[in-house]
């Protein structure tokens, strides 16, 4: 029987052959690129003058606040927002032939919103329009963000603020959250989980049925986005859960879990190392275990290193082009052997070995021929044995 990977490759390859390619694609692409440069007038009525836009709506998020520096602006209260400097002009807005512009042609002004975080500035162009083939969904808020590797990412989403509500979120992209808010809103602030406040921006332009709010903050923070009127009275708020980036590989403290030669697990040879991390990096209170593969990145446990479960499997799925699959993870100190039991009854296992002194953790790793693995990992059982040979933990 083919492995899941083989089936995937065959299916994707067959499906890809059915894509159609036009003969005039290059000419159309060049024309599309040139149109944006040479025909500014046709839709300039949608734009507000750039300098005015910057002065009215651009608010720079205090980078020092985001970095945790509270002192210059006084405790955890709202930071004094920096205004856009005269030279801080937006880049070229998305052209008429921009993909989203065509999916939801503007029925309002196209307004640039400047945000910055960690010293990097982004410009998000926002407008309202009706999505093609979905006019009955109501008016949509569209956004396109450029700068700092955003590459024009964005999208369009429902914009209507329902009865009795103050604001909605359209999601956003990267570190930017945005959406629509009722006209009474005069300020928007993200209050992060640790109490810090990050001022956001409100944008309004011709034809806007709502104000547009936007705020940029590090996404590993839980956040409440709070809206207030011009008297400072809170109108309402939206909550966002934290999303955690992968931490950097620590410079020390690593323990080699296993090594592998080239063309077995990865095209190049590599070493897998385990590190004991400060759990706050990944949203867990306490310590967590992370594994760094020298050739292909990292995997971080989402479980606290203390407390159950007794065996944590960090790898072992059928990945890459591997002839072998490596099962590895950590276990609590009462687990001396870890065994994988496959649906047919075959077992693969290994003795665990001590990890960091005083951590109460042990590490383990063993290989399994990829061909032996089922495409139904739910039928595989991982067992943890103590020194007396008793099963002290089992899980799928």
């Amino acid at each position, binding site marked *: 029987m083919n492995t899941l990977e083989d089936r995937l490759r065959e*299916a994707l390859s067959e499906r890809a052959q059915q894509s159609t*390619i036009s003969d005039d*694609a290059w000419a159309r692409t060049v024309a599309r*690129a040139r149109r944006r440069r040479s025909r500014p007038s046709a839709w300039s009525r949608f734009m507000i003058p750039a300098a005015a836009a910057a002065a009215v709506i651009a608010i720079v998020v205090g980078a020092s606040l985001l970095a945790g520096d509270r002192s210059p602006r006084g405790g955890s209260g709202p930071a004094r927002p920096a205004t856009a400097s005269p030279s801080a002009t937006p880049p070229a807005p998305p052209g008429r032939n921009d993909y989203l512009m065509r999916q939801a042609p503007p029925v309002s002004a196209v307004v640039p919103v400047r945000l910055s975080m960690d010293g990097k500035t982004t410009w998000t162009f926002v407008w309202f329009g009706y999505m093609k083939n979905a006019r009955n969904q109501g008016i949509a808020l569209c956004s396109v963000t450029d700068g700092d590797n955003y590459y024009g990412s964005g999208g369009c989403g429902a914009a209507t603020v329902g009865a009795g509500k103050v604001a909605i979120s359209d*999601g956003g992209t990267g570190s930017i959250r945005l959406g629509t808010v009722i006209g009474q809103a005069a300020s928007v602030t993200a209050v992060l989980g640790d109490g810090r406040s990050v001022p956001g921006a409100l944008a309004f332009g011709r034809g806007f049925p709502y104000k547009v709010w936007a705020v940029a903050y590090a996404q590993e923070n839980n956040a409440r986005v709070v809206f207030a009127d011009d008297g400072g009275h809170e109108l309402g708020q939206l909550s966002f859960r934290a999303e955690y980036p992968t931490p950097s590989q620590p410079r020390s403290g690593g323990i080699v879990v296993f090594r592998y030669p080239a063309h077995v697990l990865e095209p190049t040879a590599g070493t897998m190392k385990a590190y004991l991390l400060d759990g706050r990096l990944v949203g867990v209170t306490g310590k967590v275990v992370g594994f760094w593969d020298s050739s292909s990145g990292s995997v971080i446990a989402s479980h606290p290193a203390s407390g159950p479960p007794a065996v944590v499997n960090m*790898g072992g799925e059928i990945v890459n082009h591997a002839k072998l699959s490596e099962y590895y993870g950590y276990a609590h100190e009462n687990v001396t052997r870890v065994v994988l039991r496959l649906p047919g009854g075959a077992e693969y296992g290994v003795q665990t070995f001590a990890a960091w002194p005083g951590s109460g953790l042990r590490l383990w790793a063993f290989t399994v021929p990829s061909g032996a693995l089922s495409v139904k*990992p739910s039928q595989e059982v991982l067992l943890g044995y103590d020194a007396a040979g008793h099963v002290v933990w089992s899980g799928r």
Partner: protein
Amino acid sequence: MGMANLRAGPTAGDDMATGVSGLFRTRYPEMVRLADLLGADDPEDIAQEAFARLIRKYDSLRDPDAALAYVRASVCNLTRNRHRHLRVVRLRTPAGRPEESSEQAAILREDHREVLTALAALPPRRREAIVLRYWLDLSEREIAEAMGTSPGAVKSNVSRGLAALAEALGEKA
């Protein structure tokens, strides 16, 4: 400042178009297919927009070798944007299978259709990671570049995507 200044590019587009044409010749079909496999409803439109963006930005690329990575990232971003649009549309329309036409469905082998249907049901980022890995055979570093994420996140998306596929296909077996 007037709007003309806003729109002025650094140089004329012709030189940049010339620089991109070689890449276009060799990679355009691949980018169309990538957009198609990621579920774009108009893959050629996505690929053309990605190359048009490259033409506009070609002279600001620090490394010409980065052009292919830029186009790949654009295709992923643009397709994801399109998904966001479609997601809103689908909120109030009957669930269907917009991923392939009936003609395509008839042509595809039955087992391949099962795999592709399960793939289409994955969250966009997992689907992207799977397609970039198993169709383009990219390394995790290259996939991370295309998706604008970390290699660790790629590993996680591939792994969880495969697990979800296995589960979905297993249930149907």
